[in-house]
């Protein structure tokens, strides 16, 4: 057979191979050990040099062409096979993903972290104290002697009397942490003390347990102007507004002197509270310069040291900031509420990234 017709014949066979097996058969029949082209290569040895050179070159050319055709056909067949497979592998991407519970962080916990971010930046450490307190830390050391009318107003939860006549109580405020902190450390002191507090009171706006945050600074120079500044800076940072109007009203707490209550301005827009706008006032905290008797109870010399203290409701500022209407719902563990008002697991408040 002439080389040209062999070439045409082989290339036809390559093109006709419908799968990789057929293609391999063609390869064996042409380029295999006993293939038609290989056989012809073997016959070159019997030729004269001139003839061999010519025929050899032609045969090599043919061999290359066939090899190329085989490779091209092989790739085409693989491509076609992949395409065909992919066509069978279609899924419905609109089907839902595997179910996975979405966790949440309680608003009180979120606000705890926000408050700690702000006061941490101002150099306030976080102090804590027990919920079951004694009379001294909760009252007497805070300049509320027995029979003081303020004791009646605290609606204290008591435990049963001990054989020695004393009885423990549930702390009515976070202020006992002031005493514990002063007794355990030396000035200068800058702490906040967030935590649970308890009063025997329950109605639309009161729950027998609630969360407070206490602040305490003791050093030699801090005065009322510093207290005002800290509270103003806190309110701006916490409510994330450029300016909050604040009203500082003289008031009375046994543990501070002078004492003041602080209001911030707000307005209502479509049933929502907007802090930092409007002319209405909302009381948010009580504060003052720590009473000399309290400093003394903390084992510190009030002749040399002074400072301020403040206390506010952690639940309350959470309600104000996030528009949560009902305090009682905070403690009911209603999944609908937890999911609606809760925060995402990795929504960690930072000063750099913003609190909300």
């Amino acid at each position, binding site marked *: 057979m002439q080389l040209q017709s062999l070439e045409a014949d082989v290339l036809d066979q390559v093109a006709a191979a419908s799968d990789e097996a057929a293609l391999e058969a063609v390869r064996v029949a042409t380029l295999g050990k006993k293939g038609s082209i290989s056989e012809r290569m073997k016959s070159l040895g019997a030729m004269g040099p001139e003839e061999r050179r010519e025929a050899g070159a032609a045969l090599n050319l043919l061999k290359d062409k066939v090899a190329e055709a085989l490779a091209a056909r092989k790739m085409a067949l693989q491509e076609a096979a992949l395409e065909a497979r992919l066509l069978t592998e279609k899924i419905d991407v609109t089907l839902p993903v595997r*179910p996975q519970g979405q966790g949440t962080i309680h608003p009180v916990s979120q606000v705890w972290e926000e408050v700690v971010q702000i006061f941490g930046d101002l150099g306030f450490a976080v102090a804590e104290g*027990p919920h079951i307190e004694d009379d001294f830390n909760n009252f007497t050391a805070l300049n509320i002697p027995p029979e003081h009318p303020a004791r*009646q107003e605290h609606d204290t939860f008591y*435990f049963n009397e001990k054989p020695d006549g004393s009885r423990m109580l549930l702390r009515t405020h976070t202020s006992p942490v002031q005493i514990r902190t002063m007794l355990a450390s030396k000035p200068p002191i800058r702490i906040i003390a967030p935590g649970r507090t308890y009063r025997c009171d329950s109605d639309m706006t009161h729950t027998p347990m609630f969360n407070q945050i206490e602040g305490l600074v003791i050093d030699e120079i801090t005065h009322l102007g*510093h207290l005002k500044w800290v509270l103003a800076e806190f309110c701006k940072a916490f409510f994330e507004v450029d300016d909050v109007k604040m009203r500082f009203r003289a008031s009375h707490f046994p543990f501070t002197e002078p004492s003041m209550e602080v209001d911030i301005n707000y307005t209502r827009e479509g049933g929502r509270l907007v802090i930092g706008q409007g002319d209405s006032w909302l009381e948010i905290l009580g504060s003052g310069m720590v009473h000399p008797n309290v400093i003394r109870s903390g084992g510190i010399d009030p002749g040399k040291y002074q400072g301020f203290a403040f206390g506010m409701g952690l639940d309350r500022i959470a309600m104000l900031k996030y528009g949560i209407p009902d305090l009682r719902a905070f403690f009911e*563990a209603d*999944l609908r509420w937890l999911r609606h008002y*809760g925060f995402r697991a990795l929504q960690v408040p930072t000063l750099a990234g913003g609190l909300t």
Partner: protein
Amino acid sequence: MKFTFSWLKDHLDTTASLDQIVEGLIGVGLEVEEVSDLTKALAPFKVAYVRDAVKHPNADKLRLCAVETDDGVKQVVCGAPNARTGMKGIVALPGAYIPGTKVTLEKGVIRGMESQAMLCSERELLISDEHNGIIEVESHWAIGTPAVKALGLDDPMLYLKVTPNRPDALGVRGIARDLAAKGLGKLKPLEAAPVVGTFSSPIKVTLDFPGNDTKPCPLFVGRYFRGVKNGPSPDWLKRRLRVIGLRPISVLVDITNYITFTYGRPLHVFDAKKVNGNIGARLARDGETIAALDGKTYDLTSAMTVIADAAGPEAIAGVIGGEPSGCSETTTEVFLEAAYFDPLRTAATGRKLGIASDARYRFERGVDPAFTQTGAEIASAMILKLCGGEASHLEIAGAAPDTSRSFTLRAARVKSLGGADVPLTEQSRILTALGFGVSETAEGLSCAVPSWRPDVHGEADLVEEVCRIVGLDNIPFAAMERGHAVARPVLNPLQKRMLAARRTLASRGFNEAVTWSFIPEAHAALFGGGQPDLKLANPISSELTDMRPSLIPNLIAAAGRNIDRGFADLALFEVGHAYAGDRPEDETLRAAGLRRGAAVARNWQGGARAVDAYDAKADALSVLEAAGAPIATVQVVAEAPAWYHPGRSGTIQMGPQNKLAHFGEIHPRVLAAMDVKGPLVAFEVVLNAIPGAKTKGAARPALNASDLMAVARDFAFVVDDGVEADKLVKAAKSADRVLITEVAVFDLFKLDGAKKSLAIEITLSPRDKTLTEAEIDAVSAKIIASVQKATGGILRS
């Protein structure tokens, strides 16, 4: 504390508006709870004259009136039976908002006749419920006079929330004094000229206390009046009392109430004819009783002070008067009592008897002892003026307790404590205006405290006085020094663990709850609590009686409530305290979680998978790991507290003495007792129990990774059912602690004859050179031998 604007002006000479006064009160620390000013709401209502009232041509019960108003004569259709020619009433013209009906008045046509205005009833003005007829005013009021003026309602009422340290502000005069110091007017001179007695009182006063210790009542002032006429008080007095919510009784009683509210000085009047013998203050005798003016009878004890005559107690000192000797319309002889009672004893008495009175309210906060006699004189003058009669000389027993004291206010102290720059002369002016006796000294100001300020005990109080009058709003903001340019960390390890536990559990799909620290007694008992030390003496409800020994019971109860709302699959957690005793160290911070229902909800790829103890174990381990516990070395043992299923629960511990967490299925009996259906698993991690991190510094040890390929080999062992997987895994690991880097359980199934097959995958990580088959076989043989020795397990063929 309630009073009216005009009442205040009796004592404060001022041109300030009501709004300015309110602002001033708030500024000085007298919180204004409410201002009730009808002059604004009732501004459209004015006096009008009914020139003519005739029957409506088309209706029997209606009248057609011609009414003269300050806007001309209007035709008014009126249904009131008392509408008649010649009367003066209150008219509203179209456009006026009627508070009682909440509509804005428009011209109307009633039964064919135009009605151009409305004659109003009291209910329409919301000043009473009266709606049987229209308001009639006295004929001297000119047409167009504002209704509030003609009705005597033009005196705004103020309601202050007075802090307990300020008994002086429980009288109008004390409030006026603060406002005068604030610069809102001048305090008018006190009108308290002594009344000249004309006879000697037939009733003497005595103080009768054991050992002459007159602390309960150091001063008793009395005065006898004869020939008085009791009866209704004059209109101005009745009106003032009504506005502040007091019911006028009779002029004698009303005078005592009026002086209570004007000067913060409670008094009492006895019908002298009903007094037996002399009268005096003494301690009650146990077993004595008194029928009080509130209609109730009280049992007295020797801890209480009474005012008594020969017949027995006639009043509970500083709290309430007695009914038998009270004044009535027929009283003609009166004995006036003004005394000073010990605040603590008065408070304790009132509290014990459950009596809240205006007198107790003031005495327990501390009335001005020096004002006792003055109060009696003012009352005397008022009695003589309003009731006539004759007054005796004053009868006085004891003396006012000496409360005199002075404190120095250093010149720079207002600045250094209050942060306010106030010139010394201004400080002096303020304190003087508040009644302090001020004199300048080398140090600053020496200040004698007035007798009506029991709250002032030192320099800080003086600073407060100056600051509150200057106004706290006027104190400049002062930046606090920043300790470090970049803030230092402030959280302690436990606080960081708390945050890590929370975020970890939320990321595992848990919803965080915050629940009560106290729980029902029955729940406490189920979880190892209920100790006497941890029971509230005065719980707010029977559901909140015991401090919780664990966080789990509240989570189970919450799960129950949520299940009832249709949430069958849920994961709840809480991070909070549990209480093992009443000492601070008995409170531990815990992270507890609960899963209920399906761990994976039913979905199109397969059915639901119910929660099991291994879910809870994974949760507990993830919390421990996030909180920095050494997870690689903790032990998991098959024992747990009694509220867990005994066979499906465990404890994670560092050793028998340091348990970090427990987990498992909740005991079916506990669920039944709490009426919550399972499947339900829970865990509780004690965050306090986790040991602190040992490593210091941020740097990590160098990475020691081998480039040689690790080799994995599988082994399946047949062991007895009771053999714990952990034991087998540990035995395998111990075969070569260097080469074996991981042992993973990958298969478990039950075999006949109380046996099971447990399959493990061993990872061998060569360090120096690739392992040969011979070396691998040698390790394998060691593993098989080690497992067999430890567990009796045989390699499955």
